């Protein structure tokens, strides 16, 4: 059985189109059943996340190119796209080694929008579980995905690709953990009910912070955000009285002057009994007087300093790419060698040889999603030469 993959992701397709092509989880069993009914598809799996839709399938060696066209047509029809939209969809099509390499990179977070993110590992696992429960996977996909999970774990443990925070919210969470350890006992106050406050507070809540207070000039907005996040709304003229019990303040009001001054913290010092106070000022202009950072036990971070830490995290992850790609190459080689040996032992037909077997992916930013592969519009044909848009189309071997 030969494995191939086709799909689109955040690099190849804009969000407006991606959101129309995504599968809801409850639709997946039906979709997998349809996929399995296509002639030649022995096994199938659908991975659908907010950043990618990918179909992995197993076919008899040599049947891949025809099969891919079948699957593309099915995908387009499944989402009821018209002829013009059909042209706009750019799918990458990968076979054998390229498909294996691509999956290993995906599961390791190397193909993600946020490099090294861990959520994708769980999403692939869930997609695999659903496909297994639907009876859509067989030996080829089972062996491939189980190996992919081992690769993902190896990348996570043997590199630093998943270390370091890369967004303002994640940095806030990491720093809070360095101040308080367990966030479950932390009380968080949000001043100003803007979107960035919500995102940052959500990050803290997702890491265990339970007691949330929201204060805003418009009490209605405070109540709404508090209700959304399971917190309590506080009138804007009353937040100062609460600060003695608060551990983390996220401030993003639209006030043109400082809202939080050193005397607010001084007044609450006795009540705080030496507990640290983490002030996250994401307002522009700033809400918190920088002088508070000179006070003992107070740690003030504004948007610029948080963004600097996030940028450092992104640089550190990017610096790990070479190491991770080398690991992936080694593990792809190991996997293919083992599979070839297994096929020889069982007297199975050989899989189509590696690169150049089919069309491959490229990205909207010009970077190939998998090395040595190019992009093909959905309406293009699988074969040699170039497609209608001048994209290179690799010959099947």
């Amino acid at each position, binding site marked *: 059985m030969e494995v191939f993959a086709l799909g689109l992701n955040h690099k190849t397709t804009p969000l407006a189109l991606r959101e129309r092509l995504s599968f809801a989880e409850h639709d997946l069993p039906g979709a997998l059943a349809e996929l399995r009914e296509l002639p030649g598809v022995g096994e199938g799996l659908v991975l659908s996340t907010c950043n990618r839709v990918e179909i992995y399938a197993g076919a008899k060696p040599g049947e891949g190119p025809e099969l891919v066209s079948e699957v593309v047509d099915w995908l387009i029809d499944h989402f009821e796209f018209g002829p013009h939209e059909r042209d706009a969809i750019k799918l990458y099509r990968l076979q054998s080694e390229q498909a294996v390499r691509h999956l290993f990179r995906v599961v390791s977070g190397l193909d993600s929008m946020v490099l090294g993110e861990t959520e994708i590992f769980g999403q692939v696992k869930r997609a695999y579980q659903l496909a297994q429960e639907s009876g859509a996977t067989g030996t080829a996909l089972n062996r491939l995905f189980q190996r992919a999970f081992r690769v993902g774990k190896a990348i996570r443990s043997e590199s630093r690709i998943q270390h370091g925070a890369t967004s303002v919210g994640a940095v806030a969470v990491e*720093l809070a953990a*360095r*101040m*308080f350890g367990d966030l479950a006992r932390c009380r968080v106050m949000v001043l100003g009910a803007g979107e960035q406050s919500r995102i940052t507070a959500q990050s803290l809540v997702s890491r265990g912070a339970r007691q949330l207070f929201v204060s805003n000039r418009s009490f209605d907005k405070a109540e709404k955000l508090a209700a959304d996040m399971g917190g309590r709304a506080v009138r804007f003229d009353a937040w100062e009285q609460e600060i003695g019990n608060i551990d983390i303040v996220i401030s993003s009001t639209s006030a043109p002057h400082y809202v939080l001054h050193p005397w607010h913290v001084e007044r609450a010092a006795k009540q705080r009994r030496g507990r640290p106070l983490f002030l996250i000022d994401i307002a522009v202009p700033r809400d918190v007087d920088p002088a508070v950072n000179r006070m003992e*036990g107070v*740690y003030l*971070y504004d948007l610029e300093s948080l963004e600097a830490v996030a940028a*450092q995290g992104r640089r550190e992850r990017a610096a790990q790419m070479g190491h991770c790609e080398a690991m992936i190459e080694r593990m792809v080689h190991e996997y293919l060698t083992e599979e070839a040996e297994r096929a020889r032992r069982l007297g199975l037909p050989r899989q189509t040889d590696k690169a150049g077997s089919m069309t491959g992916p490229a990205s909207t930013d010009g970077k190939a999603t998998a090395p040595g592969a190019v992009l093909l519009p959905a309406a293009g044909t699988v074969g040699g030469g170039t497609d209608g848009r001048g994209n290179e189309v690799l010959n099947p071997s």
Partner: protein
Amino acid sequence: MPTDFVYLLGSTLVFAGVFIAGLRRLRRGDAESRTGNMIPMAVAFGLQTAFLYVRGQYHGRCPITSVLEVVLFLCWAMVLLYFLAGPAFHLSLLGWFTSPLVAVLQGLALFLPGLALPGMPAFPAVPEKPDMGGTVDALLETHAGLSLIAYGAFGLAAVAGAMFLLQDHLLKHHRIRRLVFALPSIELLGRATGRIVLVGWLLLTAGLVVALFMERTPGGAKLGVSIAVWVMYGGMLLLLAVSRLRPRQLARAAVFGFLLPVVTLWLVTGR
């Protein structure tokens, strides 16, 4: 080369190695590895114990007869307490921070002349049969042992305090590097420092209470130093209890306060 010297040298080198290996792991980004510290620390602790055992055999009593031995006993107590307090506070990195202090103290004890008892070689030959001729004063041994373990706790509190000050400095000045993520949280470090000081103070109190029952109470200077140390750490705890000492002040007090027991070690040495 005398056996006890070999044990001491080996232990000192392992502690130095723990620190250097920890620095390397930090550069690689896995400084928080527990086993990375625990196993070599256990080896070094075993060598310290072997040194004290050989010395105990030589003297036929608790080996705290010279500054060298007292320093070793103090370092041994610090490492022992690290093994007890480290897991309790999830402070595996405390071992890494303790190792350079222990390596330096032991290094000084190894190579500074004059730390042995006057008229006695630094590493005397150990007799085949211990000298059990003299009587062992159990109360004196208990008093000295408890007091030195208390000093070990104060040493460990100084290390935890130093870790607090470092983490506080890095977070305050936005120097967010790997060490920040390897170090425990500010809150945990503050709490651990206070509790380790409390443990040390309780042990010292017990040591002083035992001294009250001794036939021959310790000399004036020795008792004066012990009481001064007891009052200093007791004062810290009192201020902490009434919220007049903030975590950073406590950390500073634990670091600089440890200088008093260290610089007066020779006064509490010997019978």
